[in-house]
């Protein structure tokens, strides 16, 4: 199975960077997600996960380093988490680490809300590399 890599664009644009590794189950979503057409973008991620869950059936270790996501993206990220929850409930090893800027209370609470809806444990990781800068 192939990796999923979407270059995205940091700083000046709206699409996140995606690197899903089929051989290790390490998946990273970073940058920002405030694109308007979220369905098409996140569908690629969901389809990759479906394939991984069916064919590879290995562990999944998700790392989120998103510094902002709009409300449309929050719905898509929720669906991604619901899929991870369903997979974890089958006995699979699923870990989610969400890196955030400790000054960003809104992000911390927003992720907490997603975890509550999906009934999924999310490890919140304070990350100095995500501080406001530039």
């Amino acid at each position, binding site marked *: 199975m192939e990796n999923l890599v979407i270059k995205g664009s940091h700083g000046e644009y709206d699409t996140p960077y995606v690197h899903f590794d089929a051989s290790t189950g390490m998946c990273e979503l970073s940058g920002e997600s405030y694109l308007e057409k979220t369905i098409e973008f996140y569908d690629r991620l969901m389809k990759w996960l479906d394939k991984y869950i069916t064919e590879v059936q290995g562990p999944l270790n998700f790392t989120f380093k998103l510094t*902002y996501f709009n409300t449309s993206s*929050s*719905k898509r990220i929720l669906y991604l988490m619901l899929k991870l929850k369903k997979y974890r409930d089958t006995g699979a090893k699923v870990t989610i680490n969400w890196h955030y800027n400790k000054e960003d209370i809104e992000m911390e609470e927003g992720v907490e809300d997603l975890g509550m809806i999906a009934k999924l444990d999310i490890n919140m990781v304070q990350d100095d590399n995500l501080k*406001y800068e530039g």
Partner: protein
Amino acid sequence: MGEEKSGMFDFSMRGEWNVIVCYKGPFTRDILNTLGSAIRKINGRRDARGEKLFRVFIELSQNISRYSAEKEGGRESPGMGSLILMDDADHYRFVTENLVSNKKITKIMERCREINSTDKDHLRELKRKHLANAVPDREGSDIGLIQLAITSGNPVEIKTRAVDSNKSFITITVRLDK
């Protein structure tokens, strides 16, 4: 949408507000990114205040882009409207205006009342409820107004003005304390 119908640009005659951004037209992806980048660096660099302004700007702009009843080129094209960001002494204020179908107004005003009559914890609860029940195959999440209230920490003010039996102008004001 003519200025004489909008009323939003009256500030130019009065000159009493410090206008940082004023835009009228289609809310395209490029416009959002260009204006968004400028708003984010309102203090010359990225910081927490600029980030909040940016997030409010994106939600307000995408609201116009998606839901404005005025679009050139069909449903998938970006909606038209106006946005102003002002710097008052102790707060920033966004005002947006666009046309909306009259059929949607009752639901929007109900949501607005619901949002403005509750505190932050209940806003988050409301957000979770609506997000959990959002329609999967639609782009919007149905939580934009709630998020505006959470991010800004202030009530969201909405006014409407009928144009005809089908459409009205909707004006949304969001205030961010400094």
